[in-house]
């Protein structure tokens, strides 16, 4: 199979044919998919493709493109903050094929009339900074000025308004919307913020078209997506999947679970828990994938201890601006840790407080935590009952769910 054909094979579009550990050069990249396509009709092509953002919120991409295309002197920000600890797919993409991302930046900026673009990368992502810097130095003749900037390595940095504040003044704090970034964004300019994987898909849609894009995935959830698979599987790492395919398919490709499974976290730390019995048949779509992080929790782990560490981390990662988030998440983290020793009152408090914090921040941080906690309480009900009968749990707490600075995955 030729390289180009391999590249267009479903589920190998972004990462197909790439060798691990090295990024491809501009020449190799262009031999694979040809030169970047500059065309304002790209906006309509993206609309026809049904592409949704791959940064977590799954918002309709064409709607965002149109919102800034109608305005004067917009700016494009490519979002590679990837603050989610369980996710590594944006970094993998930037290391493996930075030119595809930059093609997406150039094609998108051209289509919406932006002359300036910023690629925002977490400050700790040194290899990715180097990869993108090298790729940028290779390019000639782009009609867009692209600069690379680092942003703080925090969970909330990827939120659009937090990202813009990080770029403007080095502080990753969300602001109240409206105004939305498309109205008033970076330094007051109408700003389009797109995740780097989304931009890579846009580059391919510009090259191969909407019908090609839709030839992978399902009608409701078209195309492919990168997922970061972690936890108790034989081969952890970044996989490209067709949307609408099952979690079982993905687990098979990873060599299967490495030990008996308790539950699977789908959609990262703002995602949902799925019981082992329901996991293999689950269809992965834009509705449940979030930013594409999936963690398989083994039966040997203490789910309460694992999840409690994540909830505490997320509470600590509050930007500290909104009362319900600061106070509510702190209280939720404390109650969650008490599920171990006094499950009944802790359970009741968690139900009350997750309901109270929803929708009450400037961003969706409290909502994300509430979703994680509520689905945990549903799925881990049997385990919680066991804890209640036996008191403290003796299962392993070795850190399947990673948090920065804390217990790391094996």
């Amino acid at each position, binding site marked *: 199979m030729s390289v180009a054909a391999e590249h267009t094979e479903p589920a190998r579009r972004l990462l197909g044919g790439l060798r691990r550990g090295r990024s491809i050069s501009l020449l190799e990249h262009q031999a694979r998919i040809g030169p970047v396509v500059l065309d304002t009709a790209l906006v309509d092509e993206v609309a026809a493709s049904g592409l949704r953002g791959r940064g977590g919120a799954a918002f309709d991409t064409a709607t965002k493109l149109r919102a800034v295309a109608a305005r004067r002197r917009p700016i494009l920000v490519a979002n590679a903050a990837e603050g989610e600890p369980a996710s590594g797919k944006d970094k993998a993409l930037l290391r493996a094929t930075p030119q595809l991302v930059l093609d997406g930046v150039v094609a998108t900026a051209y289509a919406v009339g932006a002359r300036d673009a910023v690629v925002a990368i977490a400050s700790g992502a040194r290899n990715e900074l180097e990869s993108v810097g090298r790729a940028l130095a290779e390019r000639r003749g782009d009609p867009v000025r692209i600069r690379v900037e680092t942003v703080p390595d925090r969970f909330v940095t990827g939120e659009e308004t937090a990202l813009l504040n990080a770029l403007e003044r080095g502080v990753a704090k969300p602001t*109240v919307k409206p105004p939305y970034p498309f109205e008033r964004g970076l330094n007051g300019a109408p700003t389009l913020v797109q995740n780097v994987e989304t931009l890579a898909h846009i580059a391919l849609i510009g090259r191969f078209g909407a019908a090609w894009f839709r030839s992978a995935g399902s009608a409701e959830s078209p195309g492919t997506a990168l997922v970061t698979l972690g936890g108790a599987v034989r081969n952890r790492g970044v996989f490209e999947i067709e949307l609408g395919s099952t979690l079982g398919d993905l687990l098979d490709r990873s060599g299967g679970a490495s030990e008996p499974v308790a539950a699977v976290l789908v959609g990262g730390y703002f995602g949902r828990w799925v019981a082992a019995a329901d996991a293999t048949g689950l269809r992965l779509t834009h509705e449940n994938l979030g930013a594409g992080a999936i963690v398989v929790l083994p039966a040997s782990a203490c789910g309460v201890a694992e999840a409690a560490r994540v909830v505490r981390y997320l509470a600590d990662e509050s930007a500290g601006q909104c*009362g319900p988030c600061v*106070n509510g998440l702190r*209280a939720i983290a404390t109650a969650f840790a008490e599920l171990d020793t006094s499950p009944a009152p802790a359970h009741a408090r968690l139900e009350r407080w997750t309901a109270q914090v929803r929708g009450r921040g*400037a961003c969706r941080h409290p909502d994300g935590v509430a979703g994680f906690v509520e689905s945990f309480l549903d799925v881990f009900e049997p385990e919680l009952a066991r804890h209640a009968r036996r008191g403290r749990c003796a299962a392993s707490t070795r850190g399947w769910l990673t948090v920065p600075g804390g217990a790391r995955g094996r």
Partner: protein
Amino acid sequence: MGDERTLRVDPIACDGHGLCAELFPERVSLDDWGYPIIDPTPIPGALERVGSRAIRQCPKRALAWSNRPRAR
């Protein structure tokens, strides 16, 4: 007629003084930490003056109408 007005709170500006809940208990309650929870039920004309008063009295200017009345 036809204005569906509700209140909204700017959660960054709000410091949890709680005056709004005292002045406008028909639509504002407080969470377990003293921050306002707004009832999204539209506010009838008879209650608009109470709502306006709560907005004016907020020491952090964190309370506002969520949609302006229609231009007449």
